[in-house]
């Protein structure tokens, strides 16, 4: 199903349940009634181009070549990304942490005990990355969009890219350890649930990285060139 402005939201959600967290992050509430994507976005002050871009990205897993991303879309996109951050920190990560504890209660293996610590390390890196985005990258981008010439710039594209490589790598390692290397005792079910959470998170983070790599960074470079 391809989403267009005239698509009824109720039908869209029925066919594509993956839209639910996306709607939440954009601030589009359920109880959608007869709303189309267009009317709902207009109602809630959400840029429909950004909504369609993000939704189609989730559904296809690719950035469409014919989309030309406009810099005016940036404030809405950044708000979306910030809402994703909140969701990770307030919902997803605590969920995963709790699931790890459950698993550890049922498995005495030393390697399994270390998973908790491994995840803590991973969370530290994630927090660093999200802080960097919230406090350095996003304000900088908004300044560029606003045309402000600011001397303060701690933003480094290379550092930015390095962050999410590290994070994705650790998550992949954790999955691998759970699937291949860590022996199971009585924790089969909680391990399965944990892995389901991790797969879901991994996909989400992957889309997040794609937005950063294929949209944010090129736009920043373009805006910097225009400014100079």
């Amino acid at each position, binding site marked *: 199903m391809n989403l267009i402005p005239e698509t009824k939201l109720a039908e869209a959600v029925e066919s594509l349940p993956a839209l639910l967290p996306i709607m939440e992050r954009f601030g589009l509430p359920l109880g959608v009634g007869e709303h189309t994507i267009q009317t709902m976005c207009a109602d809630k002050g959400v840029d429909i181009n950004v909504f369609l871009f993000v939704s189609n990205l989730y559904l296809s897993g690719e950035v469409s070549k014919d989309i030309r991303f406009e810099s005016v879309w940036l404030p809405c996109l950044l708000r979306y990304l910030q809402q994703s951050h909140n969701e990770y920190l307030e919902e997803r990560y605590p969920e995963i942490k709790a699931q790890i504890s459950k698993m550890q209660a049922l498995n005495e293996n*030393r390697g399994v005990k270390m998973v908790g610590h491994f995840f803590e390390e991973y969370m530290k890196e994630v927090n660093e990355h999200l802080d960097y985005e919230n406090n350095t990258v996003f304000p900088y981008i908004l300044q560029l969009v606003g045309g402000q010439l600011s001397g303060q710039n701690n933003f480094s594209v290379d550092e930015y890219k390095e962050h999410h490589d590290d994070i994705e790598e650790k998550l992949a390692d954790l999955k691998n350890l759970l699937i291949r290397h*860590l022996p199971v005792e009585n924790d089969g079910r909680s391990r399965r649930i944990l892995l389901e959470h991790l797969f879901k998170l991994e996909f989400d983070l992957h889309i997040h990285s794609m937005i950063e790599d294929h949209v944010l960074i090129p736009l920043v470079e373009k805006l910097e060139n225009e400014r100079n």
Partner: protein
Amino acid sequence: MNAIDMATQSEHILIAHPSAIVYLGFSSVIKMANIKGEIVYAYSLSQLESRLKMQPYSRVFISPMLVLNAVPVVADLVQRFHCRWVLLVSEIMPRQLNELFHERIFLDDSVDELIKSLNNNPEPQQNHSELAKQILSDRELDVLKLLVEGFSNKEIADKLYISTHTVISHRKNIIQKTGIKSVSGLTIFAVVNKLIGVDDYFPT
């Protein structure tokens, strides 16, 4: 006199460790594991040898501290006195020591894990290391252990008398065979496969 009296299933156990506290603690755990029999103490290598000469034992638990400076002496004892020789480990051990003994027990394991290890047949413990040895070559295992101990590529190269380029090549193979990229991930792999012991880096 039999080392294991089959009728009453009782064993003759020897604990060779310089610390009396470890001996007392470990004896308690052995009793908690419902292992019946006598437990004898030796605090030095010479005491160990005289005890071994006096009667057969079913299991000897020995501290690395007694082995490290006297490897040939201990290797000789292991050859002469046949029983299960178990190394009591609490830190990262050079592989040469591991290969002298039939099994290892990690002193920083929980009491439940210790009891399990004591009641296990020798095979399961060895299986884990065997598995890792099947996946990774000897050299790759050497590199992996130094890597998780925190050494850089250059330092690993120096220790193994190979080039940095070769170390990197081994690392690539390790990643490809295990599917794990990060050093902390590889550390968990090493612990699961009993290639290293858990130390202060990883509080549980």
